[in-house]
């Protein structure tokens, strides 16, 4: 709350800086804006940036450093016997202190040392914040005054402001990239920890998946086997079924939309098809689990086939339906990118519409379509919600679509749901699975985008 107030005050000050910079620039030239190097607004932004950025950086720096500094100070003031506790126990004591200081814990049954420490903690935090607020406001005012004296008619305010904008943009994109790098590195290191416990070859080539590790020696059914082949096989089977649905339906509907449909039909049908892409995957998930899977099971019974109620078929088919709009809109784009001159050339020779599509348009659009299909495959492999609900948990190694299989994503979810210790092989296995998933989808995306881009250049 205090931080929020401080931020508001700083924002007001920044706005004030804008008005002041603009007013001063205009004042210096007697209101004749043409005699300024830049538009008056740029002088305003210039002063505002000098006022706002350093102050906000101060606040941000304090907010990140505060816990570390306070913890260090509190620890050093604790009695020696508490300080000599192990790292984990010390952490618990510090946690108590923090809770006491913020008033969210009862004071009863706590040693006076700790109460004293908590009081010191609270005072230090208030003092620290007050000091920071004063410094930040001082910095803002100083920046404002400094920038105001720099404002002259000849100053290149526009260039300075543009430069700052550039720096801000670079900083934003750096944050995005660094976050990605951070996630990948964390995946990588946690996976390495996993591979210290379970050899990578056992994980990648093992045929048995049974991730329950035994807590006691005599526990039953907890073999702790981490052979991921059944998961990969299950993922591939479901993705394959999904593509068997999505590829033909998506492609053919794209052909209809781009080549045959009347513009009025297209205007209605295309958005409707794209609504499919807007349905949350959770909805697809329970649709698969509650409607499609029982339907397949009952149909199977009619023909004397035994279809599991969590069959790979149901999950795959529903996933395929989910991907249809994806395939169809990507194919639609590449088909539309085939120049009209190709169609005219073909019609001019007396080809019919379907001959033109089969012999000219599809071959020309094929690389782009393949790229789109590969992107769709990577969507299918990474898809989670549908398979969590509709596919099973049993890691069967089978190619029979009527049986229950499980996928990489489903297992990641089940490994991490519930109370877990975060350094057991069981939880770390999720990171290893995530890493594999990441590598596969990344590779697919890279290949697909290369193919699509190569195709785009063809007619330029």
């Amino acid at each position, binding site marked *: 709350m205090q931080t929020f107030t401080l931020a508001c005050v700083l924002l007001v000050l920044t706005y004030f800086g804008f008005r002041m910079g603009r007013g001063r620039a205009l004042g210096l030239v007697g209101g004749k804006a043409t005699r300024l190097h830049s538009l008056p607004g740029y002088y305003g932004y210039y002063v505002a940036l000098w006022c706002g950025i350093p102050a906000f950086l101060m606040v941000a720096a304090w907010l990140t450093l505060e816990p570390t500094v306070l913890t260090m100070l509190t620890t050093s003031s604790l009695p020696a016997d508490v300080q000599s506790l192990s790292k984990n126990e010390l952490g618990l004591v510090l946690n108590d202190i923090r809770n006491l200081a913020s008033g969210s814990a009862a004071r009863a049954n706590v040693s006076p040392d700790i109460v004293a420490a908590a009081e010191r903690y609270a005072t230090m935090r208030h003092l620290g914040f007050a000091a920071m607020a004063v410094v930040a406001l001082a910095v803002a005012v100083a920046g404002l005054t400094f920038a105001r004296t720099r404002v002259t008619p000849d100053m290149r305010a526009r260039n300075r402001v543009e430069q700052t904008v550039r720096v801000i943009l670079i900083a934003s994109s750096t944050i995005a990239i660094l976050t990605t790098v951070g996630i990948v590195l964390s995946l990588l290191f946690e996976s390495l920890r996993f591979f210290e416990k379970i050899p990578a070859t056992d994980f990648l080539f093992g045929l048995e998946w049974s991730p329950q590790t035994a807590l006691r020696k005599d526990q039953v059914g907890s073999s702790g086997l981490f052979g991921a082949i059944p998961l990969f096989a299950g993922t591939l089977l479901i993705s394959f079924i999904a593509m068997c649905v999505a590829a033909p339906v998506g492609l053919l509907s794209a052909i209809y939309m781009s080549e045959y449909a*009347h*513009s009025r039909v297209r205007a209605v049908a295309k958005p409707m098809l794209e609504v499919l892409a807007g349905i949350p995957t959770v909805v697809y998930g329970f649709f698969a689990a509650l409607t499609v899977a029982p339907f397949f099971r009952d149909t199977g019974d009619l023909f004397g086939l035994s279809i599991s109620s969590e069959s790979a078929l149901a999950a795959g088919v529903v996933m395929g339906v989910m991907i249809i709009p994806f395939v169809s809109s990507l194919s639609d784009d590449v088909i539309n990118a085939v*120049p009209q*001159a*190709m*169609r*005219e*050339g*073909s*019609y*001019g*020779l*007396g*080809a*019919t519409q379907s*001959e033109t599509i089969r*012999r*000219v348009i599809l*071959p*020309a659009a094929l690389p782009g379509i393949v790229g789109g299909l590969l992107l769709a495959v990577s969507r299918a492999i990474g898809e989670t919600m549908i398979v969590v609900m509709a596919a099973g948990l049993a890691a069967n190694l089978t190619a029979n679509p009527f049986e229950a299989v499980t996928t990489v994503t489903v297992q990641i979810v089940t490994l991490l749901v519930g109370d877990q210790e975060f350094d057991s092989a069981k939880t770390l296995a999720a990171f290893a699975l995530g890493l594999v998933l990441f590598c596969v989808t990344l590779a697919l995306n890279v290949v697909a985008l290369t193919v699509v881009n190569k195709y785009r250049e*063809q007619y330029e």
Partner: protein
Amino acid sequence: MDMTNVATEMTDAAPHLPSHGHSQAAGEPKFVTRGVTVHYGEKQALFGIDLDINTNEVTALIGPSGCGKSTYLRCLNRMNDTIPICRVGGSIELDGENILAKEVDVVHLRARVGMVFQKPNPFPKSIYENVCYGPRIHGIASGKDDLDEIVERSLERAGLWKEVKDRLMEPGTGLSGGQQQRLCIARAIAVDPEVILMDEPCSALDPIATAKIEELIDELRENYTIVIVTHSMQQAARVSQRTAFFHLGDLIEHGDTDQIFTKPKNEKTQDYITGRFG
């Protein structure tokens, strides 16, 4: 005007000169068109065109941009069918048969009336596949040898055989602009049409390639009826026997090429061919 001068010299040097000194004996009319109108949605593009196109002659359609000459040309093989908002009225008879009638199969019509477009548009396939595209879809060739022969004959007639005979399997898009356009002509010839429509076939080409195409058009006249839309008056004068001048969707004047270019009856024609407008 440098470019056209070069082109003129090139054609002048060539042995097969279009004979625009005397008027050609007019052949039988191939196309008889009466009162042809075209609407694009609400907008009318052609206002009743009456024009005959004679067999084994080159008819040039000239006029300023947007005058409807390309629209008229595209009526002759019903290419306007591919534009949903386009409506064609009047009558167009090819050898006495009205091609605008509903029961006419455009696939057969377009096999009889081939088309070459403004920008060379070879398919992204090999040279060989480009040429045999038409024969394949019409089932003209009876076997591989037959197809080879058609490809060779068509490329030969389009004057391209010597240049490409060693690289028939290379993509047609790898040829130069002029070669691509001759490939498109070969592609049209391969289905053995009676008429070839050309929509500004040289506008994307350099003067030398243009001269080659013009020379080719003059040779093709022996076997085919040719209708060509052109923006270049010199080109119309060089390659055609008859010329029709379009303006704002109307046919202003038509007749023998040398008459149109030397003694136009209409003032607008006079103004256009002398470069006063357009």
